[in-house]
């Protein structure tokens, strides 16, 4: 194989070796002849040459014997193809650019997919890494496990599981010292590190006894971010809220944990109270299967223990399932798979359009080379040989496109990653670096070869087919039809996305997003909020655990008499409802002492009333959340707290909290008028107050904009691709119609000479284009509907069908098609009958 490759790219070397070997033979022979037969040197050389025979012939035979003829031919084809590219660089460049766009999109997405769903986790035994999922009787997910349940699970699964660890996932908390910033902390059981092969680079990891001690393990990224320039941070202290954590050790750079973002610190699960990430301190469970153990057996052992857990009946565990998580995102889950395959399908569709277009271009180009090809055939080249040569040409162009595409894709990934990182840094996360690995190379290369074969094969077969002359036109029709279908699908996708963005922009959150601001004050101090409230520009200020519109609110299990349901909850102070603008529909809001003392009272949303009390009056009733009873004192309307596209949080519970208290870590503000000067005034007030930092008011409108960004990006990509597809389709239609006019000049001239009306002529010309167009739309429509159904059933809770989009896109396509046909049709109508007939 190596020799083969060498032969394609460095043919001279092998040839020189062969020549040297034969030369040695002849000279040795000549020397023998001189020594043994006493011939003169000249005579001996002549005899040796004669005896040896034709060196060229034998070298040729030798090459064939080495199996190099194919390589020779390939080299010839490559040279020929390269010469063709040099002769017509415009064509090759256009083809490579089209492919680069399509392959680039594929390579970029593949790189993301490969990094998160294919690349194994950087832990020991990644292939045996599983997550434990509790299911209740109805199959619904139960939330987490208590420390006691964890130890029981560990024991019960010991035969099949090498270890089971508990994890909180990533928690966003505020670090106060040595620097002040948002950081990511993960609470994990002490066996997390030894089980997953993590050894401290310096210091040590925490022990089981230290799971409840203020001891933390620093990640390499955390070291750089939080304690830059500190030689060995072991023994240093960092402060999260009121707690000083001692750094026990630092993990090496290659231990980044099990999440897609690297936490700054790992602490024991017993310290979650100190992090104050709200109620619901249950941990998730995950672990490693023993080598050879089956997930089913492990799940059975774990289930046997879990059904015995003492829990309220609604939360009782009926079954424990194991979900493989050898990568950052489990492809075990249907959602990930459906989402990924939808995106892949879209991108491959783009590639298919590109190939269809290139096939059309190539078809025209090879048709123009009919003379050259028939000459080669008459000189004895076989059909296979010529097809091979044409395929080499298309593949060479395709590989150029694939290389450019890979570069383009990588550029895009770098950009996307930078964007993601800037977002994540705001939230205190370090996003793992993305790698373009061999998989991406192979993927792009294979796509390149496949597309080269795809757009080269049909034209090559057509060009070497002499009997059926009508087929090229039918093939072109087919290609064009599929192009129309593909651009239809893409444009509908873009239009649906744009409509969704418009809808999101019009979604009413339930409060004034322009005048309500996230104060970004760290931490919220009661005195500062009081001073702000006194300012004339400020209509209200309040402390809150989570500012709305930053993603889903935290969830917990709630119970009333007889009903249990998951609810979303938030901690707010006595000014919150007034500040955000939520009018109480019944009862009252919190009083200041209730907020400061964390009284056992709750305000619920309308939706929660419907869900938990079937709409009956809830005031004075008891609501139990995670075992703690609260008295319902008020009802507020349903508003959107989380994702705009998910709509209002239908079961929302507000619990009392206060600035400086346990849970309220953020603050919101409402201005009377959202003018820049008012915002500036607010900044002045908080910066002149001691005790807090930050304060960079950001309107909830801006936060909502960030939510819309992914839709915007998707719409832009789909729109761009759809636009390109539309252009290519129009160009294809134009060339088909022009070709048909060109072919039928005489016929048209005759028709006109015989007095045919322009209408008839036009109808004849447009029949084919119309057929392509109609068949494309007819094929594209069900594809769109099927895609929208698949998407609707899985991931995005957005509207996937839109009448406007489905109505608009065919009109747009028809307009483009008409425009494309206009020029050749006019040319046909301007034909002088006599000129046309006299031709040839």
């Amino acid at each position, binding site marked *: 194989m190596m020799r083969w490759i060498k032969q394609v790219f460095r043919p001279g070397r092998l040839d020189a070796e062969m020549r040297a*070997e*034969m030369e*040695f033979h002849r000279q040795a022979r000549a020397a023998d002849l001189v020594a043994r037969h006493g011939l003169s040197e000249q005579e001996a050389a002549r005899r040796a040459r004669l005896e*040896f025979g034709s060196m060229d012939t034998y070298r040729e*035979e030798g090459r064939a014997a080495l*199996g190099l003829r194919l390589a020779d031919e390939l080299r010839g084809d490559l040279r020929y193809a390269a010469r063709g590219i040099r002769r017509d660089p415009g064509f090759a460049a256009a083809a490579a650019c089209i492919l680069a766009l399509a392959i680039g999109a594929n390579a970029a997405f593949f790189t993301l997919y490969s990094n998160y769903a294919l690349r194994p986790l950087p832990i020991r035994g990644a292939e045996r890494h599983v997550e434990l999922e509790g299911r209740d009787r109805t199959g619904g997910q139960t939330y987490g496990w208590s420390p006691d349940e964890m130890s029981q699970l560990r024991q019960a699964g010991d035969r099949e599981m090498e270890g089971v660890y508990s994890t909180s996932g990533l928690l966003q908390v505020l670090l106060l010292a040595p620097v002040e910033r948002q950081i990511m902390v993960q609470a994990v059981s002490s066996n997390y590190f030894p089980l997953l092969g993590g050894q401290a680079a310096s210091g040590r990891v925490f022990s089981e006894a230290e799971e409840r001690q203020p001891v933390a393990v620093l990640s390499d990224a955390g070291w750089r971010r939080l304690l830059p320039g500190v030689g060995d941070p072991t023994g240093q202290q960092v402060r999260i809220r009121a707690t000083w954590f001692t750094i026990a050790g630092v993990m090496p750079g290659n231990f980044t944990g099990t999440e897609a973002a690297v936490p700054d610190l790992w602490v024991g699960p017993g310290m979650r109270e100190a992090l104050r990430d709200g109620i619901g301190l249950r941990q998730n469970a995950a672990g490693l299967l023993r080598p050879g153990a089956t997930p089913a057996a492990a799940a059975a052992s774990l289930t046997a223990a879990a059904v015995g857990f003492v829990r309220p009946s609604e939360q009782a565990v009926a079954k424990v399932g194991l979900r493989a998580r050898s990568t950052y995102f489990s492809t075990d889950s249907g959602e990930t798979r459906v989402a990924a395959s939808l995106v892949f399908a879209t991108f491959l569709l783009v590639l298919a359009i590109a190939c269809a277009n290139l096939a059309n271009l190539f078809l025209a180009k090879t048709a123009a080379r009919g003379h050259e090809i028939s000459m080669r055939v008459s000189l004895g080249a076989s059909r296979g040989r010529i097809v091979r040569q044409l395929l080499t040409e298309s593949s060479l162009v395709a590989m150029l496109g694939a290389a450019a595409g890979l570069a383009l894709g990588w550029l895009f990934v770098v950009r996307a990653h930078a964007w993601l990182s800037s977002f994540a840094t705001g939230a205190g996360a370090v996003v793992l670096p993305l790698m373009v690995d061999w998989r991406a190379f192979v993927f792009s290369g294979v796509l390149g070869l496949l597309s080269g074969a795809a757009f080269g094969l049909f034209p090559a077969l057509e060009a070497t087919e002499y009997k059926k002359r009508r087929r090229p036109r039918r093939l072109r029709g087919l290609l064009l039809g599929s192009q129309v279908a593909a651009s239809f699908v893409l444009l509908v996708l873009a239009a649906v996305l744009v409509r969704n963005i418009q809808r999101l922009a019009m979604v009413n959150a339930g409060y004034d997003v322009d005048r309500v601001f996230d104060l970004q004050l760290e931490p919220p101090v009661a005195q500062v909020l009081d001073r702000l409230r006194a300012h004339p520009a400020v209509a209200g200020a309040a402390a809150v655990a989570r500012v709305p519109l930053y993603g889903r609110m935290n969830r917990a299990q709630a119970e009333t008499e007889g009903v249990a349901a998951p609810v979303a909850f938030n901690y707010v102070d006595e000014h919150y409802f007034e500040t955000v603008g939520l009018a109480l529909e019944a009862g009252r809001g919190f009083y200041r002492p209730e907020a400061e003392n964390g009284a056992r009272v709750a305000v619920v949303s309308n939706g929660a009333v419907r869900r938990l009390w079937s709409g009956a009056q809830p005031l004075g009733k008891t609501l139990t959340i995670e075992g703690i009873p609260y008295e319902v004192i008020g009802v507020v309307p349903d508003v959107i707290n989380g994702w705009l596209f998910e709509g209002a949080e239908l079961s929302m519970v507000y619990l009392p909290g206060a600035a400086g208290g346990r849970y309220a870590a953020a603050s919101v503000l409402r201005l009377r008028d959202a003018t820049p000067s008012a915002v500036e005034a607010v900044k002045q007030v908080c910066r002149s107050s001691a005790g807090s930092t930050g304060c960079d008011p950001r309107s909830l409108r801006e936060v909502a904009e960030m939510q819309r960004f992914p839709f915007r990006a998707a719409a832009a990509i789909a729109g761009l691709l759809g636009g390109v597809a539309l252009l290519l389709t129009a160009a294809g239609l134009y060339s088909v119609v022009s070709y048909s006019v060109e072919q039928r000049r005489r016929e048209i001239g005759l028709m006109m000479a015989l007095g045919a009306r322009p209408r008839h002529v036009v109808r004849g010309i447009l029949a084919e284009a119309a057929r392509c167009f109609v068949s494309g739309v007819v094929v594209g429509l069900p594809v769109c509907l099927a895609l929208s159904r698949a998407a609707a059933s899985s991931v995005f809770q957005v509207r996937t069908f839109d009448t406007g989009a489905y109505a608009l896109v065919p009109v747009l396509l028809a307009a483009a098609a008409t425009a494309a046909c206009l020029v050749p049709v006019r040319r046909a109508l301007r034909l002088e009958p006599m000129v046309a007939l006299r031709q040839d």
Partner: protein
Amino acid sequence: MAVPVLPGTLDLLILKAVSLGPQHGYGVLLRIEQISGERLLIEQGALYPALYRLETQKLISSEWGVSDNNRRAKFYSLTAAGRKRLAEELEGWKEFAAGMSLALAARSAE
């Protein structure tokens, strides 16, 4: 008197010659002449395509070395696969030769 080798038997001869020790192309030629008692005549150039063919089949391997007269030459030696093939071919040849001799020695059965 020397006779040209039968078509298809050159490969066997080369394997045999190389089995006696690594040799360069010209050495293989001399050795075949020598061990056949100068009875067999080989088209000299034709030796090389045959050598390359055997090398491609991995029956012999080659290496650049220095010849007796201190010149660079490519030396061929037998591989394990070549040794096995040689044994098989020898077996086959013996059968063939015995059959041929018997057939050609037959007389009319009167």
